[in-house]
């Protein structure tokens, strides 16, 4: 089941979605067992930006039917901290190739990120997250095909490593965006990232319905049944500290399948498919529509080793 991908030989076609697995933290929680059973054929870092970011204020998570909205806000140590601290913390034990995911808000920023990564041999490939508002236009760099191609053409020369472009799904024509990435020099595209979504602070009445009678007595006093819990915490009425967030998990699986199929139909470069993969069947669907690799995100939160199980089942055929 080993797979050739952009010049790398991977043990199987299952990797992680950026930002959904922290190999360093997992190594801390699970110890050496993680090395022996590392669930992914390559490890994708969370998104690294030029400057360190602390991320969004809590709450950062909201659970929905068959899915999760996150509003993490891309916390990371910044390029320098990543190179100085995370790379050494991974080296020596990470049993698979490292793909570093980076994001910048202008060609100049991206260029700097690519050049810095290019210089480090620990990094096997670079994934560029283009779900980032352009500092100049305000529009996500990846949402508009022309803008995307222009930015990529400008930075492509800054690295010899394989360059994967992680497309945004919040766009009118993802096939056109995939084509733009290819024309701009990408070696592969990956999709889908999360769908823009939002949740409000639950109303007390709502909580009561969900939690049964017990809660009634517990929620703070107040006569207006429409008043929202914790309105003091977040007066905007929005639950997520970041205001809006991104939807992932089972709820987006069929949207992902449609977008991956559209991307595959639009490009010759390999496609990494992801979005709501929970088991071998979901991964196989993405491979069947033409994805070369499959990434697992949210499902790893429920089961850290699910990626490995999917890989084994893809190899063996379903039980």
């Amino acid at each position: 089941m080993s797979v050739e991908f952009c010049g790398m030989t991977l043990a199987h076609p299952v990797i992680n979605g950026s930002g959904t697995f922290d190999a360093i933290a997992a190594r801390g929680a699970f110890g050496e067992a993680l090395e022996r059973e590392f669930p992914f054929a390559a490890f994708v870092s969370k998104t690294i930006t030029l400057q360190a970011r602390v991320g969004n204020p809590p709450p950062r998570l909201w659970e929905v039917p068959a899915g999760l909205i996150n509003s993490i806000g891309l916390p990371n140590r910044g390029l320098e901290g990543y190179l100085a601290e995370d790379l050494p913390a991974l080296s020596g034990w990470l049993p698979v190739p490292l793909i570093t995911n980076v994001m910048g808000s202008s060609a100049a920023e991206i260029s700097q990120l690519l050049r810095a990564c290019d210089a480090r041999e620990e990094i096997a490939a670079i994934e560029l997250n283009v779900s980032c508002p352009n500092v100049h236009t305000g529009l996500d760099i990846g949402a508009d095909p022309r803008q995307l191609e222009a930015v990529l053409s400008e930075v492509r020369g800054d690295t010899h490593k394989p360059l994967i472009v992680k497309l945004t799904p919040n766009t009118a024509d993802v096939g056109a965006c995939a084509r733009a990435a290819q024309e701009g020099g990408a070696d592969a595209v990956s999709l889908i990232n999360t769908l823009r979504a939002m949740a409000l602070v639950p109303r007390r009445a709502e909580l009561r319905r969900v939690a049964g009678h017990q809660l009634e007595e517990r929620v703070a006093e107040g006569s207006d049944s429409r008043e929202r819990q914790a309105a003091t915490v977040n007066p905007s009425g929005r639950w997520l500290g970041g205001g809006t967030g991104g939807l992932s998990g089972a709820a987006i699986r069929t949207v992902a399948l449609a977008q991956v199929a559209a991307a595959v139909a639009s490009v010759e470069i390999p496609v990494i498919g992801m979005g709501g993969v929970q088991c071998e069947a979901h991964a196989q669907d993405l491979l069947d529509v033409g994805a070369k690799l499959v990434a697992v995100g949210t499902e790893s939160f429920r089961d850290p080793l699910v990626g490995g199980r999917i890989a084994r089942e893809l190899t063996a055929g379903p039980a």
Partner: protein
Amino acid sequence: MPAACTRALASPHRRLLKVTANERLGAYSVLRVGDPDGPLPAPGQFAMLAAAEGWGGGEEGRPYLARAFSVARVRDGEAHYLLEDVGPGTRGLCALAPGDGVLALGPLGRGFSLPQEERRALLVGGGVGIAPLAILQDALTQTGSASTVLLGFRDAAHAVGARLLSGAILATDDGSVGHAGLVTELLAAELERDGHAVVYACGPAPMLEAVRALCAARVTPAELALEAGMACGFGACYGCVVPARDGRYLRVCVDGPVIDAGELDHVDAHAGAPT
């Protein structure tokens, strides 16, 4: 200051365990799960739990993710959890019967450290937040240390939960049992009486904040077991954060749940036990 945090490593395997008992304890449930071969959790560590069947359904299509629960006790190859039904996940777990399956990942996070400098241990708990204090009391008793236990509850039905620990001094909001008022009022009196103590606290955010402020004012070391909405429990999602003194965010699941009170400027309103 307390010594290095204690932490047992979890297996990365989500394990299918069996419920051995699930009994009411006043307003709470005590769920017992057979786990003879699992790693021994340190006091303050937690596990991510999900029912093996019927998780992911429910009227609202939730729960979808596993839920975090402090290990309240380990005895005879069983882990005990103290549960309060506050939503679809806890409701599903409260409804489990002996023989039912539970998917468990753990033990996770950093636990409490044991007292240093012969300080006496003051355990301060509120509501369902008393859970990690029970296993801490067990550990202290094993090392021969005495502990003073101060617990606060809403009312008499909830105060029944205090049976999880021994020798607790109680406070209730409605005055039906013990001191009529806040558990932190008991704590203030105790610190007044003998300040050479280390405080271990777990409970609702306002209680934790009051504990933090009290201890900060007296320069009494304190360890707070925080809570936060969690998607993963092992540092993967960065969802479970609380703001630290230095402006950065700590992940409760890997940097905590037990956090030295000194690292916090204040206890975030989302960082406590359900109320």
